[in-house]
C-alpha cells in the first residue's frame, strides 16, 4: 500500500477492493460450511429416515430446500459476485468505485438469505425448486444484488482500454442477467402465479437459467482470467470465444425443458430443450479448447480449475446424453438427476470458484495463504469428495431408475438396493464438509495475518514475482 507502483502484480484495484471483496468471500465460505452441515443432515435422512424427523424445522423436505438455498444463494452468489467484481476491477485498470454499495448490498443480501432460511424452516417456503425462499424476502434479494453489482458495472463502463476480454463479457453478463431472471421468475411464480403445469415450465426455465446464464458465466469469468494470467500465454483458439459466449447466452436457457422430460407438458418443450443441450456442446468444446493450458501446469488454482473444467465439460456431455428420452426413462426424477446437478454445481462451478479464490486471495490480502498444508488438504478432500458424491449418486440413481421401471420390485426392496450407495453419499458429504472447513480456517488465518501485521509491510513485496508481458502466439 505504501508504494503500489513498484508492485505491479498487486494493483490499486486490489488494495481498494480488499475489505469489500473479502467480505463477499467470507460470507460465501460461511454459507458453504452451513450448507455442508445441512447437506449432511439431508443425506443421512435418505437412509435413516428417523434422523431429526420429529423436529419440524429439519424434516427432509425443508432441509433439502435449505441446502439448495444456502449453496446457490449463499455460497455461489457471494463467491461468484466477489470474483466478478475482482476481475472487472483488475481488467478495468482502475480501483473499483462505489464499493460502499457493494458492502451494503452484501450485508442486505446475506440478511435476506438468513431471513429466507428461517422462512423456509418455519414452513413459509414456496414449492419451486431454487426459488424456495418465501415471497417476502424475494424483492430484498433483487435490490441487494443490484447494489452489489454497481461497482462491477462502473468498472466495466470506466475501463481504461477499449478492448475487452472474455472474462469481462461473462462477468458483466452474469451481473445483468440475474436480476432479470429473478424478477421474471418471481413475477410468474410468486406474485401473480401462472396456472397449472405452466408453473413447472417456468421453474424449469429458471433452474436451468440460474445454472447456465448466471453461475456458469460467473465461474468462467474467473477461469478465463486466471488461466492466461498464470500460464503467461494467450488463450489458444481465442477467436472462437465470442461465438462460445453468445451460444451460451442464446441457447442456455432453452435447455430448461430437459427437466420436464416425462412430465405433463407438450412434447415440443422437452424436444426443444434436448436440441438446445446438443447445441450447447459447441460452447463447452470451445471453452475446453480455450482453457486447455490449465492441464499443462501445476499450482493450487490450476488444480481446482482443471478439475472444474473437466466436470463442466463432462456435465454437459452427460446432460446431452440423458436428454435422449430412452435414457431419461431411467435417469429422470431419480438420484441420477441429483448427481448431474451436483456435478455441475460442486464439480464444475464451485471448483472453478475455488480456483479463482485461491488465485485472488493473496492479491487482496497482499500475502500468501496462511498454510500450505491446509491448501493441499482442501484440494485433496474436495476432489475426493466430489468424485465419491457424483459417482455414488449416479449409481444409486441408475439402480433406482431400473427398479422403478420394474413393477415387480416393491418400494422397500428398491430402498434396500440404493441404501449402500446412499451411505457412500453421506461419507462424501462428510469429506466435503471437512475439506471446506479446512478452507474456511485457512481463510480466517490468512485474513488475520493480513490484519495483524503493520501496514507498511503490505504488500509482502518479496513473495510476488513481477509479471512480464504476455507471450503472443505467432500467427
Amino acid at each position, binding site marked *: 500500500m505504501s508504494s503500489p507502483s513498484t508492485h*505491479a*502484480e498487486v*494493483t490499486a484495484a486490489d488494495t481498494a477492493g480488499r475489505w469489500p471483496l473479502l467480505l463477499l468471500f467470507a460470507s460465501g465460505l460461511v454459507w458453504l460450511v452451513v450448507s455442508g452441515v445441512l447437506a449432511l443432515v439431508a443425506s443421512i435422512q435418505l437412509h435413516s429416515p428417523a434422523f431429526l424427523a420429529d423436529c419440524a424445522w429439519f424434516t427432509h423436505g425443508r432441509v433439502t430446500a435449505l441446502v439448495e438455498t444456502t449453496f446457490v444463494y449463499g455460497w455461489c452468489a457471494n463467491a461468484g459476485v466477489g470474483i466478478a467484481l475482482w476481475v472487472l476491477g*483488475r*481488467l478495468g*485498470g482502475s480501483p473499483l468505485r462505489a464499493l460502499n454499495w457493494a458492502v451494503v448490498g452484501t450485508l442486505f443480501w446475506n440478511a435476506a438469505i438468513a431471513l429466507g432460511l428461517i422462512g423456509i424452516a418455519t414452513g413459509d417456503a414456496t414449492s419451486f425448486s431454487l426459488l424456495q425462499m418465501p415471497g417476502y424476502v424475494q424483492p430484498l434479494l433483487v435490490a441487494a444484488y443490484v447494489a452489489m453489482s454497481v461497482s462491477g458495472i462502473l468498472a466495466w463502463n470506466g475501463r481504461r*482500454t477499449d*478492448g*475487452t*476480454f472474455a472474462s469481462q463479457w461473462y462477468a458483466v453478463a452474469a451481473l445483468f442477467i440475474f436480476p432479470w431472471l429473478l424478477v421474471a421468475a418471481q413475477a410468474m411464480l410468486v406474485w401473480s402465479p401462472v396456472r397449472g403445469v405452466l408453473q413447472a415450465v417456468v421453474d424449469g426455465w429458471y433452474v436451468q437459467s440460474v445454472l447456465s446464464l448466471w453461475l456458469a458465466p460467473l465461474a468462467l469469468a474467473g477461469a478465463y482470467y*486466471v488461466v*492466461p*494470467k*498464470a500460464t*503467461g*500465454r*494467450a488463450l*489458444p*483458439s*481465442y*477467436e*472462437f470465444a*465470442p461465438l462460445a459466449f453468445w451460444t451460451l447466452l442464446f441457447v442456455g436457457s432453452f435447455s430448461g425443458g430437459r427437466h420436464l422430460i416425462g412430465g*405433463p*407438458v*407438450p*412434447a*415440443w418443450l422437452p*424436444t426443444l430443450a*434436448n*436440441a*438446445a443441450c*446438443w*447445441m450447447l456442446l459447441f460452447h463447452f*468444446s*470451445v471453452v475446453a*479448447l480455450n482453457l486447455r493450458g490449465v492441464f499443462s*501446469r*501445476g*499450482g*493450487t*488454482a*490450476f488444480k481446482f480449475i482443471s478439475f472444474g473444467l473437466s466436470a463442466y465439460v463432462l456435465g454437459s456431455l452427460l446432460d446431452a446424453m440423458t436428454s435422449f428420452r430412452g435414457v431419461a426413462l431411467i435417469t429422470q426424477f431419480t438420484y441420477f438427476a441429483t448427481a448431474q446437478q451436483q456435478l455441475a454445481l460442486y464439480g464444475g462451478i464451485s471448483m472453478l470458484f475455488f480456483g479463482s479464490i485461491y488465485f485472488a486471495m*493473496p492479491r487482496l490480502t497482499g500475502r*500468501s*495463504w*496462511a*498454510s500450505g498444508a491446509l*491448501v*493441499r488438504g482442501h484440494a485433496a478432500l474436495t476432489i475426493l469428495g466430489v468424485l465419491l458424491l457424483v459417482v455414488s449418486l449416479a449409481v444409486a440413481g441408475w439402480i433406482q431408475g431400473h427398479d422403478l421401471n420394474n413393477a415387480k420390485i416393491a418400494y422397500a426392496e428398491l430402498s434396500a438396493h440404493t441404501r449402500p450407495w446412499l451411505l457412500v453419499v453421506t461419507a462424501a458429504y462428510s469429506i466435503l464438509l471437512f475439506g471446506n472447513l479446512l478452507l474456511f480456517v485457512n481463510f480466517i488465518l490468512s485474513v488475520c495475518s493480513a490484519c495483524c501485521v503493520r501496514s507498511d509491510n503490505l504488500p509482502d513485496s518479496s*513473495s510476488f*514475482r513481477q*509479471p*512480464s*508481458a*504476455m*507471450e*503472443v*502466439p505467432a*500467427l
Partner: protein
Amino acid sequence: MSTPSNQDPRLDQAAASDESLLASHEKLLGTQPDEKARYKLVPLTLLFFFSGLIFFAGTYLNRYSGLFDPHIYNENSLPTTGAAVAVKIDPLVLGKKQYEAVCITCHQATGLGQPGVFPPLAGSEWVNGSDDRLIRVVVYGLQGPIKVMGVDYNGAAMPAIGKVAGSGFNLSDEKIAAVLTYIRQQWGNSTAAITTEQVAAVRSKDGDRKAYTAAELLK
C-alpha cells in the same frame, strides 16, 4: 519469459500483466483464423462440428416436436387432421358392464335366476329364441306369468330397461343390443348377436307402450 515454478501451494504466481493480457487477446480477436491462406485444422474442425450440431439439432427438433402442437404429449405422434377416428367397442365388454349394473340383481351372476321367482337365462328358450321377442321383453318389460324351460314363474315383473316411457333405466339401443349379445354368449348359450339396428327397429315399430305379457309375445 520465465516459466513460473509453482512450488508454493500458498501462492500462484502471475506470468503476465493485466495490460499485456488485454492487449494480446484483443489482437487475437482482430485476426482471421485462416489469415495468409494457412488452413489451420482447429477452425475447420470447429466449423464442421458446429454445422453438424446445428444439423442434428434441427433434424431432431423437426422429428420430435409434434409440429409444436400444444395438444401433442407424445413426441412420436403427429397432430391428427379431420374427423376423429371412431372407437370400436366390444359388445361383450359393454354388455357385461350393463348386465352387472342392471340384470344381475334378479338373474344372478350365474344367469340361473332364483328358483320359483326369477327365471333363468342360461339355456332359456326365450333368450335363445326369437330376436324380436327377446328385444321386446328387455326394452318394454314383462308382466304376468311366464313359462321358462317347463317351469312356471309368477312371482315378479320384469321392468322396462330400454329408452321408453316409464323405464327406470333408459339404456340406449346400443347398450340393450350389447347386453342381449352378452347373455346370448354366456353360461353355455351361443346364439347370434343382436345389433343396435334391430333394437332401434323394434322400438320405432312398437312406439311407447306398457309392458308385454307372455301371452302377447307368444301370439
